[in-house]
């Protein structure tokens, strides 16, 4: 009989895993809690490092899905249990399936920047997040701040909600440094007269052509990089944001006014993922992401045979990392089901 795999979460990871599994000859059901598939990717206007349009990227990933894959959207998982050598999965809407293997591709959640109150998100109008900025880019509207002005200066704050034990996130979100560089360039393209500043602790340009993009940001766009983590921001009477950092390379405190401040919100494990892992009996680890049995050699395997993991639910990844991880998970599943 044709073996059946249930993939939970239809972001880039879930879509790619499903397509690959289907190509390998398995029957696949892809479950998504939202109305639409695509995960975070549907919100991104353009992707680093090539500025490939997010929409196009999602389209080409989705194109690989074939009609035998059953896509079960708007379904919240309420039950997930290992029974002998198969799994039973049920949704809030009465949907129910048996599966020979399960792949968890539930992704990440964007850090809620309200939690860094001292940065002023939700308090000062001209403090926005990187996700808000993508939305602004995608809308195609004129680039103005919330006061309707073209900002003369734009600041990007790295590591918001990442590398910060005050919000219980020690991990680095990996993609936000390069995203900041990408977004800084895009802003500069829209506002050639604006001055752009990135406030960083470390610049983590880990991928191919990321360092090049960083260099381009310096060379072509004159983007300024200031090494110092924001402590707090205030608002002046004109609605500008006054930022406080230490210019750590100079060893001096620095105050600077910007018309728009963009917070590079990090990736967090989803709250909902924890309830799935709890149903399965997987152990929770301090950082909250799903823990594979071995991060180096068996990154798609969990402690429970038949339960696999792919994409950002097991730690921050870029889209290309995510897709590769998804294909690798499909092979791991195939290996498991054929033996």
């Amino acid at each position: 009989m044709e073996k059946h795999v249930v993939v939970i979460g239809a972001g880039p990871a879930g879509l790619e895993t499903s397509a690959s599994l289907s190509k390998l000859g398995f029957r696949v059901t892809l479950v998504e809690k939202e109305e639409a598939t695509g995960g975070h990717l549907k919100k991104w206007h353009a992707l680093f490092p090539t500025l490939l349009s997010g929409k196009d990227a999602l389209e080409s990933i989705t194109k690989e899905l074939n009609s035998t894959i059953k896509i079960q959207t708007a379904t919240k998982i309420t039950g997930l249990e290992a029974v002998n050598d198969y799994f039973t999965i049920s949704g809030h809407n009465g949907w129910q399936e048996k599966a020979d293997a399960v792949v968890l591709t539930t992704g990440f959640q964007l850090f809620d920047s309200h939690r860094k109150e001292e940065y002023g998100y939700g308090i000062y109008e001209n403090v926005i997040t990187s996700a808000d900025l993508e939305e602004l880019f995608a809308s195609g509207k004129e680039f103005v701040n919330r006061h309707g002005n073209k900002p003369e200066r734009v600041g990007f704050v790295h590591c918001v909600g990442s590398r910060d034990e005050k919000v219980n996130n020690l991990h680095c979100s990996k993609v936000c440094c390069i995203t900041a560089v990408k977004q800084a360039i895009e802003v500069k393209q829209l506002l050639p007269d604006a001055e752009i500043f990135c406030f960083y602790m470390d610049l983590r340009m880990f991928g191919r052509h990321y360092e090049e993009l960083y260099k381009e940001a310096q060379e072509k766009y004159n983007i300024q990089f200031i090494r110092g983590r924001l402590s707090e921001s205030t608002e002046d009477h004109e609605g500008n944001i006054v930022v406080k950092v230490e210019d750590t390379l100079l060893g001096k405190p620095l105050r600077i006014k910007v018309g728009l401040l963009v917070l590079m919100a990090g990736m967090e494990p989803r709250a909902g993922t924890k309830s799935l892992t709890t149903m399965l009996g997987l152990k929770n680890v301090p950082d909250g992401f799903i823990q594979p049995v071995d991060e180096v050699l068996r990154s798609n395997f969990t402690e429970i045979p038949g339960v696999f993991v792919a994409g950002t639910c097991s730690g921050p990844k870029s889209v290309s990392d995510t897709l590769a991880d998804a294909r690798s998970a499909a092979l791991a599943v195939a290996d498991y089901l054929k033996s």
Partner: protein
Amino acid sequence: MEKKPKNFGYSVTRDRQIDFDANNHDICKIVTKAEPTLNLCISCGSCAATCTAGQFTDFSLRQVILLLRRGETKDLDKEVSKCMLCGKCQLVCPRNVSTRNLVIQISKALCDNRMSAS
């Protein structure tokens, strides 16, 4: 190892180099023992950016930590004496360094050092 006479002040011949080998590293050891979170600092500068004392004077806890770790302890007591212990730094530190206790422990270690020297 003999200690090189150091030239402070503003003369052009001022030794710009950190003479790591000649420096006194005992104070750092004492402080680290008393407040182990010293080692967790990643020099992000948030403490200095938010610092209540830092608004009025040249004082950076981040720099103090680095100087201590390099054994550059001369004049460090003057630096830490500027702290008001207000605790803002502790509230913003992303690495949960116990900054207030750190300041106290540095002051104490330097004070003890002064006492034993005199």
